[in-house]
C-alpha cells in the first residue's frame, strides 16, 4: 500500500469516501535545535499558507517538522502545489507573512492555555528543544532551504484508484532530490527525557477565575503490545463522558465542564495525560476527587462492563471520527510525523478487539498509581491547596 519513490519519499495513497475533493498531507522533517531555527520553520509554514489559487493550503511547524495540508478539486493541482512546498522556498515575499505571524503569536501567547502548555513542557522536559517557543522578535529573514525527500511522507486520499493517486504523486515529486551537499537526511532530535513521578508544581495565575490541572505519567508507545490494553484502561478512567472522571467530577459533583484523559504522543513521547479545568473555588476539591479516581483504578479495577463499554466506544469512535476523508488523511500523517508507522491507524481496531479484559485490569494496576504522575496546577494563588500532591 505504501510506495517509496526513487528519491526516498514515502507515498501512502488511499481511496476513501465520495466527495470530489483530493485531500493530501505532506510531512517534511526539519529538526530545530534553537529558537532561530524554529522561527524560520514557523515563518515558512505561514508563507506556505498564503496561496492565491484553487488549492487550499495550510502548514504547521514544530521543532521536528513542517506538516503541509492541501486540498482542492484537482489531483494534479494539489500534488504540484505540495511539490512546490517541498522546495523549501516561500512562494511569495515573506514580509506580509512575517507581520501576520507576529500578530498571531502575540494573540496566541496571551491565551492562558498556551502559557500553561509552555510551563508544563518546561516543567517536564527541561531544556529539550520540544520546549522552544517562538516570539515575534525571533522572526528574521527566511533562508531558502530545500527539504530532503528521505524521511518525508505523503498521504493522498481521494475517490480515485489508489494507484492513480500514487502515480500522480510520483509525477509531481519526480524532480525532488536531496541537495548535493547532504549525504544523509538530517538527524532527528534526541528523545524526550523520562518523566519522573511525584513532581506537581504550582503555576500562580493571579486573578484567574478558572484553575487548570495538567498531569502526565509514563505510558507505552502505540506500537507496543500493551498499548491497546492501556488505551482501554485510560478510556475507562476519563476518555469519554461515560468515564469515571466525567461521572464523578462533571455529572455528580459539577466541579468541571471539561475533564479528559488522553495519550500525549507529542514530540515522539508516550505519556498518559489527565487534564481538568475547574472554578477557582473548587480547585482543591477537584484535585482530591481526581486523585481518588486514580487510586480507585487500582482498588476497584475496571469491570467487565466498563471494559466492554470503553471498547465499544473506542471502536465506534474510530469508525465515526475517521469517516471524513480529511480526518483519515490527518490521522495517518500525524502517526507518520511522530516517527511511527502510519498503518498503525488502520490496524488499531483489530488490536483493540483482541485485548483480553485481564490485560486492561493489569494496565490499570500498573500505570495509574498516583505517585507516577507529575504536572502542573495553574491557579489563582489563593485557590492553590496547601498540599500539592495526589
Amino acid at each position, binding site marked *: 500500500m505504501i510506495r517509496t519513490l526513487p528519491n526516498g519519499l514515502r507515498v501512502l495513497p488511499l481511496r476513501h469516501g465520495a466527495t470530489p475533493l483530493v485531500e493530501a498531507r505532506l510531512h517534511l522533517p526539519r529538526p530545530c535545535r534553537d529558537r532561530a531555527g524554529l522561527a524560520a520553520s514557523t515563518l515558512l509554514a505561514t508563507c506556505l499558507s498564503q496561496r492565491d489559487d484553487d488549492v487550499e493550503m495550510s502548514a504547521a511547524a514544530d521543532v521536528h517538522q513542517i506538516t503541509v495540508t492541501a486540498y482542492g478539486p484537482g489531483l494534479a493541482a494539489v500534488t504540484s502545489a505540495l511539490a512546490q512546498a517541498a522546495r523549501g522556498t516561500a512562494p511569495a515575499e515573506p514580509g506580509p507573512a512575517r507581520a501576520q505571524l507576529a500578530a498571531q503569536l502575540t494573540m496566541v501567547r496571551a491565551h492562558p492555555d498556551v502559557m500553561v502548555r509552555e510551563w508544563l513542557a518546561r516543567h517536564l522536559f527541561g531544556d529539550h528543544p520540544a520546549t522552544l517557543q517562538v516570539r515575534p522578535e525571533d522572526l528574521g529573514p527566511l533562508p531558502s532551504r530545500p527539504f530532503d525527500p528521505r524521511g518525508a511522507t505523503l498521504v493522498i486520499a481521494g475517490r480515485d484508484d489508489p494507484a492513480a493517486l500514487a502515480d500522480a504523486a510520483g509525477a509531481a515529486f519526480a524532480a525532488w532530490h536531496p541537495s548535493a551537499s547532504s549525504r544523509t537526511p538530517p538527524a532527528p532530535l534526541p528523545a524526550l527525557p523520562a518523566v519522573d513521578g511525584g513532581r506537581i508544581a504550582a503555576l500562580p495565575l493571579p486573578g484567574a477565575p478558572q484553575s487548570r490541572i495538567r498531569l502526565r505519567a509514563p505510558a507505552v508507545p502505540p506500537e507496543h503490545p500493551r498499548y491497546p490494553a492501556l488505551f482501554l484502561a485510560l478510556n475507562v478512567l476519563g476518555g*469519554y463522558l461515560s468515564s469515571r472522571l466525567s461521572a464523578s467530577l462533571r455529572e455528580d459533583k459539577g466541579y468541571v465542564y*471539561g475533564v479528559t484523559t488522553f495519550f500525549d504522543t507529542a514530540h515522539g513521547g508516550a505519556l498518559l495525560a489527565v487534564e481538568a479545568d475547574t472554578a477557582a473555588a473548587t480547585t482543591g476539591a477537584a484535585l482530591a476527587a481526581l486523585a481518588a479516581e486514580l487510586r480507585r483504578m487500582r482498588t476497584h479495577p475496571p469491570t467487565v462492563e466498563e471494559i466492554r463499554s470503553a471498547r465499544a466506544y473506542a471502536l465506534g469512535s474510530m469508525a465515526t471520527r475517521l469517516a471524513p476523508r480529511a480526518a483519515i488523511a490527518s490521522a495517518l500523517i500525524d502517526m507518520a510525523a511522530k516517527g511511527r508507522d502510519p498503518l498503525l491507524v488502520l490496524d488499531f481496531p483489530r488490536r483493540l478487539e483482541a485485548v483480553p479484559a485481564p490485560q486492561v485490569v493489569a494496565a490499570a494496576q500498573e500505570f495509574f498509581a498516583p505517585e507516577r504522575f507529575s504536572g502542573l496546577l495553574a491557579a489563582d494563588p489563593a485557590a492553590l491547596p496547601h498540599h500539592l500532591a495526589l
Partner: protein
Amino acid sequence: MKRVTLGNGLRVVVEEEHSAPVAAVAVHYGVGFRGEGRPGLAHLFEHLMFDGHFQYVEGVGGFCNASTRQDYTDFYTVVPAGAVARVLNLEAARMRGPRITARAIRAQTSVVREEILGKTRKPYGGFPWPRLSPVLFRDAANAHDGYGDHASLRHITPQDCEEFFERHYSPANAVLTVSGDVRADAVLEIAAHAFGDIPARPAPPPVSYHEPLPSAAREAEYADPLAPMPALAAGHRVPDPATGAHFALSALAGLLTGGGRPRLRERLRRESGHTVTFSARVGLFDFLDARDPDLWVLTAVHPGELPAGRVLEAVDAELRALAADGPGEEELRRCRTAWLTAHHRSMDRVANRVRLLGRFELLFGDPWRVAGLPDAYAAVTAADVAEAASLLRPDSRALLRVAPRKG
C-alpha cells in the same frame, strides 16, 4: 431523500449516503434563545436533556452534542450505521419527556457556569457574541445574552423546566433528521414506531422577532484585560434569508477577508504598513442558520498604533469600491471555488450534513435547499456582490470596540 410528517406533527427527513458505514441523527426543536423568555433557560434546558443520553450513545460507540442558537436547539448523534435504531429510540424517549430533578438542575447550572467561564474568560472571550448583539438590537429577545447568567439560572425550578418542555418540545415543534449509511424506508418505519405514539401537542404559534433597522450608527466599548491588542466588531442587519441575499453577502465576506490576498488586509498594508487580522461572515453563528433578523458581522484585531477609525475607513472604502464596480471576474471565481471546496469538505462530515438538512427543514421548511447550495452560490454575479456591498451602510452599523490590557 425522503420527507414525511407523522400524525403528531413530527417532521421526518431521511437522506441515504453510503460512502462510509456511519450515520447521524439530529433532532431540531423550534426554540432557541430568542424564544426562551428567561435568559439562559434554552441553553440550560439543552444540558438537562442529556441526562443519561451521553452514556447510552457512547455505549454504542458514537458521539453526540447539542447547540442552542437563535431559533432552534439541536441535538445530534453520530454512530456506526448499525446503531441508528437504538439512537432513534433514545431520541423518542427524551422527546416523550426527560427526567428533570432539582439535583440535575443544580449540577447542570454549575456545568453551564463552567462552560461560560471557559468561553468568556479568555482573550476575546464573548467577542463578537454575545457582546455585539445588544449594540445592534433593541428588542430583548434579540439583544440578550443567550448563555444567561449564573445568578438568574440558579432560581430555575423543575416546574419552570416542565412548562418549557410542555410548550416548546412538542413533536409538532420538532424535526427528526437521519443521514448516512441507512435505508430510508427502514428508518421511516422505525421512526414511525418510536415517535408515532408520542401525544400530539400544539406547536407554539410563530413569533416574529423583527425590529426596525437602526436609524443611526451605534457604538459600544468594553475592556478585555486579557486581550493583547485592540479589536472591533462591526454588525449590520441583513435582509430576510428568504430573499436569497445571503449568498452575495457571504461572497462579499469572502472577498473582503478570505483567500490568499483578502482585499481589506491588502488595503491596510498598502496604506498604513500595518497588519490587521480580519474575519467576516453572514449569520451570527453560521450561514442560513436563523430566521430574520440576522446580521453580517466583521471582526478585526488591529495593532494599537492603528486607530479603530482607520480600520473602519478601510472597510468603508472597500465597501464603496465593491458597491461601485463589483469584484473582478477572476476574483469572484476564486471566491466561489473556495466556498465550494469548504462546502464539500463540510458536507463530508455526516454531523454537518444532518444538522444542515434538519435546520433547513425547521427554519425554511425546505431540506432540499441543501442540495441546491452549490448552484445558488455559483449563480452569484458581480452585480449581486455590488448590491450586497451597498446594503452595508455605515449609518446603520453597530460598532463594538475592545480595549486591550494596559501596557
